[in-house]
């Protein structure tokens, strides 16, 4: 071709110049483990389901959630949400209200009748689950979804374990609990009520079970020796709370004293108030700071007019119901020591809420079992010393929460599944943690945490109506969108925008981005400006 004056070469594009050769570090996209996921005892992919909730796709969010936890409406009410305590957003304004969004999704699923995907296959294997508390139900759910045939033997007249016979209705309405249990049973899980397992080896043999998961909880109330008159009305917390599920409500009288400092003590005292007690008093031997109960529960109880006597022990109870209470003082090590100073307290009934022990009688004469501190020891795979028998929840060493119990059920189910197939389940390696300094928080705006409504005080003192209300769709969406998406690309387009070399390729909605290493010079702006820390700079092998 004829070229203009002084031009000897054809016009070329700078694409011929592969500037990637300048690079000493290369940006690589990663997924980091968000601290919320890391903290969740049930192993939920919280950031993952919030991602869908942020788009308003609540069903997809719910489906992602129930991959790990089949009971979001229950969890959204009773979980102590360690996820929120470790949420990175807490460093900016307030943590994301994960628990409230979870509850919203759970309630939405019940309202709209969403059901689980049926099992894809049938392994033909029979698995026995002992106990229909959260741990047993969770294991049953995961085993059923993995294609196994599951039968639950439950000693009690109804399923739910402590979710039904412990946690009061004003925190967990029974319709919610029933809906989530029924959805699990609808997967084809067989539930035998009023079927107490007395001897596990025998039951397994008779039912020809290939494996078993034990989750019998901890139901035997601990007693403290308190000298009491014959006629003194002395009960334990389990009796009272279990009684609430029966035909006749327990008779506690107008002046009720509860002895203990855990969540159970609070639940009993609050229940007594609702049953008409004028005085509902908790006696606890240590201070508020040392109380194992959660602060928000103490707060709610105080609002309802529960009185708490700190640093006090009960010495005895007379026939007429007079309690002798001794004042305690903390020593240098923080232990309560008696002071000799006493006072009296009038009570129509005294309820002991001093914790529970595990009834291990079904395990008598099982070889190879190790029992320490009153609980069954299990390995990393949740298997007891007896091959094929797994255990979880309150009966093994644990924090004794619904969430931990559900997490155990999931973990055990995965190992049982592997064990039945004669392989070893290898959990996927965990990603590096998305720590706060990985984030570029400039890009996030302040947004206040959405507040859940609470019932008025009068109704909280006289009815068992639910105390804490749920978010509506508007503020649930707002709350979900407060998530920073720690360590996981949320398609904000920053890397694509800030590269001076057009070396980031946008792959389209849902497909994230890729680096064009032909031109990436390795300046690292994409990494520096990624809000959520989803990029890492890796040295080039030069």
């Amino acid at each position, binding site marked *: 071709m004829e070229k203009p004056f002084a*031009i000897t*070469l*054809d*016009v*070329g*594009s*700078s*694409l*011929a*110049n*592969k*500037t990637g050769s*300048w690079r000493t570090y290369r940006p690589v996209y990663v997924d980091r483990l968000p601290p919320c996921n890391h903290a969740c005892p049930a192993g939920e992919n919280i950031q993952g389901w919030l991602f869908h909730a*942020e*788009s308003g796709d609540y069903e997809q969010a719910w489906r992602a959630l129930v991959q790990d936890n089949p009971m979001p409406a229950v969890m959204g009410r009773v979980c102590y949400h360690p996820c929120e305590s470790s949420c990175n957003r807490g460093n900016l304004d307030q943590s994301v209200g994960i628990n409230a969004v979870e509850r919203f999704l759970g309630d939405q699923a019940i309202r709209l009748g969403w059901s689980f995907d049926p099992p894809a296959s049938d392994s033909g294997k029979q698995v026995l689950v002992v106990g229909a508390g959260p741990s047993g139900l969770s294991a049953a759910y995961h085993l059923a979804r993995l294609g196994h045939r599951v039968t639950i033997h439950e000693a009690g007249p109804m399923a739910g374990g402590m979710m039904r016979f412990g946690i009061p209705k004003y925190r967990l309405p029974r319709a919610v609990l029933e809906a989530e249990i029924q959805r699990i049973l609808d997967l084809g899980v067989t539930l035998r009520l009023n079927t107490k397992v007395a001897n596990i080896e025998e039951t397994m043999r008779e039912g020809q079970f290939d494996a078993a998961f034990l989750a019998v909880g901890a139901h035997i109330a601990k007693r403290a020796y308190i000298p009491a008159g014959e006629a003194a009305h002395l009960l334990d917390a389990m009796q009272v709370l279990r009684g609430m599920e029966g035909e006749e409500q327990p008779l506690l009288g107008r002046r009720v004293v509860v002895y203990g400092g855990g969540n159970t003590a609070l639940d009993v005292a609050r229940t007594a108030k609702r049953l008409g007690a004028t005085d509902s008093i908790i006696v606890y031997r240590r201070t508020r700071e040392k109380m194992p109960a959660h602060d928000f529960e103490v707060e709610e109880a105080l609002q309802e007019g529960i009185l708490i006597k700190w640093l006090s022990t009960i010495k005895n109870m007379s026939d007429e119901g007079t309690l002798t209470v001794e004042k305690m003082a903390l020593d240098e090590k923080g232990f309560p020591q008696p002071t000799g100073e006493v006072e009296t307290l009038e009570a129509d009934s005294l309820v002991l809420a001093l914790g529970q022990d595990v009834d291990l009688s079904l395990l008598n004469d099982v070889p190879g079992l190790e029992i320490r501190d009153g609980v069954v020891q299990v390995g990393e795979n949740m298997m007891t010393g007896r091959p094929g028998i797994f255990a979880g929840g309150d009966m093994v060493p644990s924090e004794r929460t619904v969430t931990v119990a559900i997490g155990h059920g999931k973990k055990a189910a995965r190992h049982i599944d592997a064990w039945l197939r004669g392989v070893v389940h290898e959990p996927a390696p965990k990603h590096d943690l998305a720590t706060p300094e990985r984030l570029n928080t*400039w*890009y*996030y*705006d302040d*947004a206040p945490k959405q507040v859940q409504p609470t019932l008025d005080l009068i109704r909280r003192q006289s009815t068992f109506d639910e105390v804490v209300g749920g978010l509506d769709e508007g503020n649930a969406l*707002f709350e979900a*969108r*407060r*998530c*920073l*998406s720690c360590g996981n690309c*949320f*398609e*904000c*387009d*920053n890397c*694509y*925008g*800030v*590269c*001076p*070399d*057009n*070396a980031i390729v*946008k792959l*389209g*909605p*849902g497909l994230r981005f890729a680096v*064009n290493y*032909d*031109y990436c*010079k*390795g*300046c*690292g*702006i994409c*990494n*520096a*400006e990624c*809000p959520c820390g989803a990029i890492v700079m890796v040295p080039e092998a030069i």
Partner: protein
Amino acid sequence: MTASIVKFYQTGTHTVGNRLLDPSQRSVQADMRRTNSLNSGHRACQGCGEALGARYAIDAAMMATDNQLIAANATGCLEVFSTPYPETSWQIPWIHSLFGNTAAVATGIAAALRVKGRQDVRVVAQGGDGGTTDIGFGCLSGMFERNDDVLYICYDNEAYMNTGVQRSSATPGAARTATTPAVGTEPGNVFGQGKNLPLIAMAHEIPYVATAIVSELRDLEAKVKRAMEIRGARYIHVFVPCPLGWGTNSWDTIRIARLAKETGIFPVIEAEHGELTGVSKIRRQLPVEDYLKPQKRFAHLFAPVLNTAAIDRIQALADRNIRRFGLIDATTGMGD
């Protein structure tokens, strides 16, 4: 500020795009079909703010003009790194003028288009701070004074970078350059010299003047778009950190720009016909040290001895900007 605030609770408007935003609310840079006016393979340094600022501005201009755009480009890094003969990174009609006459060349293109009746085709002139505030100043002032139908964009990296970091009339006080070494009793560039081109442009009372910064993409794009809605002489002054000349980390380019704004060092403003019409407020005010410290050109202010007098002087200049342009809301003490 020209960019409208999108009430979006996860990230506000601060990110380039976001999967949850309506496409019309995302930036041009978030668009998979953006022009990439300045394409890959250019030879700008790692993390060059000028390359970034130029793509931001020209892509936005292309979007605003339906791709009917011609650019004239002064000599300087932007020209040299984009067009080593016979290659070009430009994916738009583009012409290299001389170092000092790009405003005049653009005026000529605009005149030719008028004669040909092609008013749909718009003209941009662009150059560095040297080409704009120093050698090209006469041509530019003429273009303003005649109200020629050109948008002039200055990419201000505060020195002559292409020839090895010499001082320009946009170099700030105390900055070390090749011609203002950090020696003597008043090391670095002399205080009290130089010129403020956005204010000079405003004094010409041309239809539109704005400043912008690479850390505020949406604001920058909105200003280019606004400029393209107007006929006559328009001027946008874009603050573009230069890792090589300033001695900053290549990955800190946007952070440094952000710090320039948050400290009040670089006011982000907008004016029509000589009147100030908008300012982008400081979001979280920071002391000037935060801006100065990461830059080697200011290293002599911190070691071997702390030069408080010079730092105070720079702080006073930033404070003056804040007062003069109202960069901090008097009532809340905060920006947006």
